[in-house]
């Protein structure tokens, strides 16, 4: 779909300025769905290709971030809605990533420095 067609689709769906003003129409939604489907297929393919195992993590993370962003921007309309919604979502998201990274770093450090024998839980 050309950019002009996308633009027309965008405008054409809401001629009366109703609550959906600024939201894209079904055309864009379907295009996004196709992109998401292709990216998911790529993720699964990468998982099974042995030669890509060394770069598996960065590829998967980039693809997941791209999918995440597409759903948030187009299906959740962050790309079209008031910027305050983006702030409300992205700031906590960054904080959440920081929390994950901090905990992983701290526990990785503990695991590296403090090697001790853990007794086996009875029954296992």
């Amino acid at each position, binding site marked *: 779909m050309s950019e002009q067609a996308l633009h027309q689709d965008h405008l054409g*769906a*809401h001629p009366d300025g*109703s*609550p*959906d003003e600024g*939201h894209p*129409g*079904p055309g864009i*939604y379907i295009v*996004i*769905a196709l992109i*998401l*489907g292709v990216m*998911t297929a790529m*993720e*699964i393919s*990468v*998982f099974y290709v042995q030669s890509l195992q060394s770069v*598996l*993590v960065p590829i*998967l993370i980039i*693809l*997941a971030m791209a*999918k*995440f962003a597409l*759903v*948030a921007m187009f*299906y*959740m309309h962050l790309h079209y*809605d*008031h910027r*305050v*919604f983006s702030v*409300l*979502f992205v*700031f*906590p*998201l960054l*904080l*959440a*990533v*920081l*929390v*994950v990274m901090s*905990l*992983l*770093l*701290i*526990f*990785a*450090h*503990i*695991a590296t*420095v403090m090697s001790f024998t*853990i*007794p*086996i*839980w*009875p029954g*296992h």
Partner: protein
Amino acid sequence: MAAQPKRLAYEFPSYLHDPPGIWGWLTTVDHKRVAVLYAVTALLMMGIGGLEAMLVRGQLLVANNHFLSAGMYNEMFTMHGTTMIFLVVMPLELGFFANFMIPLQIGARDVAFPRLNALSFWVALAGTIFLHLGLMRGLGMLPDAGWFGYANLTERMYTPGVNVDCWDIGLLILGTSTLLSSLNFFVTIVNMRAPGMTFMRMPMFMWAMLITTILVLLAFPALTVGLIFLFADRFLNTHFYVVSAGGTPILWQHLFWIFGHPEVYIMALPAFGIASEILPVFSRKPLFGYPMMAYSIVLIAFLSYGVWGHHMFATGMGPIADSTFAITSMLIAIPTGIKVFSWIATVWGGRLRFTTAMLFALGFVIEFTIGGLSGIMHASAPVDLQQTDTYIVIAHFHYVLFGGMMMSILAGFYYWWPKVSGRMLNEKLGKLHFWMTIWAFNATFFPMHFLGTLGMPRRIYTYAPNMGWDFWNFFISINAFILGFSFLIFFINIVWTSLRGEAAPADPWDGRTLEWSVASPPPAFNFVTIPTVVSRDAFWVRKYGGATAHGIAPAIAGGAAAGVAMPPAVGHAEEEHHIHMPAPSLYPVLFAIGLFMAGVGCLVWTRLIIMGGGLLGISIIGMVFEYPTFGKYNPEMIEESTIGVDHRKMGMWAFLGSECVFFATLISTYMVYKDRNLSGPDAMILNIPLTSFSTFILLTSSLLMVLALAAVQRNDRKWSVFWLCGTIFFGVIFLGGQAFEFTDFVLHGLKLQTNLFGQCFFTLVGFHGIHVLIGVVWLTVLMIATARGKIGKDRSLAIEIGGLYWHFVDIVWIIIFTLIYLMRTVKHA
């Protein structure tokens, strides 16, 4: 005191009498009444928490004392801390002051979601009662593992009674209430400010509350996750915090303090805000350095997320983590110092009036500064290692919590109580209260620094007579009793003046902010006409004009009485007729009862869980559909909103932001634990083909969801119902796939209790599944409403908000699918 302005005579009944009777209070959704309900509950709990402190000090009065048993001592200090933090300070700051003052200070008639506000109170009350269930005969005892509930002391094997269950479930219930309140206040402050009230014209208390709500939304999910793990350990036999099963109690400490240190600022920032309101009024000067004061609050809040580790120096996090947390902790002193110096500069050169409120506010500045200085000592890891678990820590946090927060809360009471009750508190009793408090507080807590230096550890129920601690313990206990007595004077003052006190004028202190422009107590709808704000200190400018807005007040106080035009505080009966206030509702009470029943069901009778769940469902649906503008696109509301967006949509986005932290905490636990398995299946058991299929299904459901939204926005009922049915169908297929996967794992020997991988996997993916299930139920209700013609284009917001939730569930799955499934062989920690 400013004289009573002529125009402020009662023309409408006050909110205290409108509507009348117990039923009116039970079903109220008025923010002021809800605030009063919070205040009454919190003051009652203040009495109980104070009594617990007296018992603790009674036990430590002399060496080798056996006034309390060791167990009862543990219960008392646990409940004292839990009560004062969760049932007194937070409800007074967020429940009482914020609830009452936010709409009045920003020029609004109520909060954004009045029913949710009432619901928050009743849920808080349910949580409060739940925490004390252990007092009931047959249930044993009160919680006794400390307010911090350190694992693995809280595990069933070490604390087999129901007391920690009550603590765990009670805090989960209270956390729900706090989250809902914060969501509500956040939207209210951002989106319901009066015309002209920009962020930089807001009263400083509003800045404090705005940032506090953000802190709550982003900090509480970590506690929620920690409590859920504890619940699973105690009820479902998992081992999140059990070392012998591969888990670690350190995880609890991280989760608790990721919440716990922002929690300190959740309590401190409102206190800062209250003092920042009082000091300018009684100095008759504007707040010094307003922009820096506002930015300092933001910076303190931001930094507060990066300092949790300073509570854990003794756990051995390593030099890098220790250094990082030490630096960030010390950095917080900078914005805090800016605030302290600004308060001093505000008072400096002012024409001071030493009312009780002012005395307590000044007391707050001094005592909090002392507490802050000892806090800097604790920020240094080597110093902290010497001080940790000694009485120095108790001295420090009481200087912060009592000297800081409680002093400010008391200042706020003496300042705003006339507005709340319509009666002046007695100043003589107030000053007696202040001087007794300031003496007894310092005499109680300052010597604790000495005791700590002498090596007296925390949490010991008695001590030997030859340790050199006898004198100071005796001295501290006597002064603690005096401190307790001073609060008796405070309670007497409130009760006495409520019955026989002098009637309060609208503006008794010659105030600067909008709440003083309405009658004391205000009418139910607050403002007849929403005021227009042209400057900071909006009411002051109205009274004295712009020339004095940022200068010293005129020589004669009481500009209102001097003939200065008053804002439209009251009007005529026909004006009231056009003001539509939200209708009362019983559903918030039913919701809280349902939640309470479900909680009790976990403890004693599992059928109560189903009954409570049913009541919850009924009350949620009832609340949604009794709302006259349910899902309705309301151009007027959007036009009148401060930033031009719908409250409900903003509320949903704020909720989703909070959910990000919730899932991040679950995901990080999974990543930390998944490779610490001692036995049983690991991540290699994960079924990639099945979940790949599920991923496509969920992504497709998101497409159908937006198509449903597009259809309803076109007013195309047939297609909107069709696409909604499709979304629900795909959601159900996803859930079916998850049920199949879980069953398959169980058949292959991986249960929730099998190993760390199992418990983390089932918890994370299970919670996502619960979210999908809630989404399916939600969309089913919307689909039925759409099919019955209840939702059309004009109410398409209901579909849009439901859709936001559904898409969020989808993007969480995108992350889970990548990190948990496709990266199953990657070692994380």
